[in-house]
């Protein structure tokens, strides 16, 4: 197609496309600590906690889709319903919920963001990023192809993706994080327990541990970088089958097997207390002092 024809087609088709979408703006009363569930298979969902005792939904619903918005105060459900092929209906929703709500969001080809929700936040999508910000007390975010980011959550946190990065910032409590192919960074905050797994994505842990914390990091081929204060009190168990181990906090690693390249390292800093286990197959392990 010639450039002029492309421009013409764009001009002609654009209004049709816009006209096919439906604009929505609806409100319902809701309990300040109720449950809000949202299903939107394609497009985006942006949730914001506010100080009103109501849920508001606004945005656009794609052609062929219909907004279902129902609830009875303690339980609100929002869904884009479709007669056929929900993947073809792209809807962009902005949802305001009482800050104390618990929110559950499900998408497929959808990007999801949640800000200022203090209850629990669970969100899942296949193709799209998920971000959460605010002191939610329980966070569970899972994507397959997309980045996952958690910020300032407390309590139990689970952040997983397959192809994408996982970044957890300034959070605290109990963390489970994993990725297959993408960086996994835990920056700031303090943890009682952290369990981190990666297949091929670089892991960096630069956060504090409580006095009896447990931290385990396991990768197959990815490098691990652990940055802790020089004053940390912990027992370390570190091993790598064929990766290099570099340690600034204690002794050097020793080769374990006579016939294999496996190296390992066990040492205690301070009076112990926290337990740290690092294992890789071929990824390098760097234990460094946090500046």
């Amino acid at each position: 197609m010639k450039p002029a024809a492309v421009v013409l087609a764009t001009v002609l088709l654009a209004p049709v496309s816009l006209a096919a979408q439906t604009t929505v703006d609806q409100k319902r009363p809701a309990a300040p600590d109720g449950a809000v569930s949202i299903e939107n298979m394609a497009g985006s969902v942006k949730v914001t906690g506010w100080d009103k005792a109501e849920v508001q939904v606004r945005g656009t619903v794609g052609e062929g889709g219909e907004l279902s918005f129902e609830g009875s105060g303690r339980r609100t459900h929002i869904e884009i319903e479709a007669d056929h092929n929900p993947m073809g209906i792209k809807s962009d929703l902005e949802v305001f919920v009482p800050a104390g709500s618990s929110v559950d969001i499900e998408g497929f080809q959808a990007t999801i963001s949640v800000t200022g929700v203090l209850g629990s936040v669970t969100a899942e999508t296949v193709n799209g990023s998920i971000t959460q910000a605010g002191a939610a007390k329980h966070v569970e975010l899972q994507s397959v192809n997309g980045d996952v980011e958690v910020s300032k959550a407390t309590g139990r946190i689970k952040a997983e993706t397959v192809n994408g990065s996982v970044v957890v910032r300034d959070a605290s409590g109990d963390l489970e994080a994993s990725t297959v192919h993408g960086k996994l960074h835990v920056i700031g905050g303090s943890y009682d327990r952290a369990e981190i797994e990666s297949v091929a994505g670089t892991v960096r842990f630069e956060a504090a541990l409580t006095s009896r914390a447990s931290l385990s990091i396991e990768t197959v081929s990815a490098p691990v970088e652990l940055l802790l204060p020089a004053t940390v009190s912990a027992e370390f168990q570190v091993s790598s089958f064929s990766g290099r181990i570099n340690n600034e906090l204690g002794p050097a690693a020793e080769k374990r097997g006579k016939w294999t390249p496996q190296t390992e390292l066990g040492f205690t800093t301070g009076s112990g207390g926290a337990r740290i286990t690092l294992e890789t197959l071929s990824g390098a392990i760097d234990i460094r002092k946090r500046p």
Partner: protein
Amino acid sequence: MTCHELDLLLDDWVDGALTGAKARELELHLAGCAPCRDRERQLRQLLAHAAALPRSMAPPRDLWPGIAERIERGSAWSAFLASWQPVALAAAAALVIGLAAFLWNGSGPAAVRTLAMPSASPQLRAVTNTGIADPVLAAAARDYEQAAGALLEALQRRRAVLPAEDLARVEANLEVIDRALEEVRQALVKDPASPELNRMLVATHRKKVDVLRRVVRLSTAL
């Protein structure tokens, strides 16, 4: 040294914490006492199993309630899943297979409870060499491989509703995991008794199943 005295020291012996004269006495006793040698072997096996188990014995936690709700909201199947407590890795893998079999067959919840494997699938009948010396872990790895095979078939059946680019991305990531599995298997050839490697192999299998089940579960919403 009597058999009873040896029993009291056996834990320390197996842990390598017994030294000096006591260790020599115990070694002499073992050399001449078959029942004590059996007890020592059993204890070593038990410890090896325990050391090699994955850190998290719980199966993927988000699969069952979500799938159950999707397939049959509020059914007895949901109650069954809700009441189920994970007790062993192999049991977790078996349940995954049950679910995969259900998805593969496209049959009702009753079929899930039987945990029946679909007999017609050559992919599922194939028992691969897991590369794991420990028989318990080898069985768990085989179960995970079979579960992955069944879930892959379930995914194939949803090709019509899944966007091609999403499927391609999932397949690309499965290849990353398969390469990692191969890397761990190669390491196991060099050090078959390594508990870390055994655990890593099973954990990587679990990751593959976890990825597949998530995509299959979400695709049921379409």
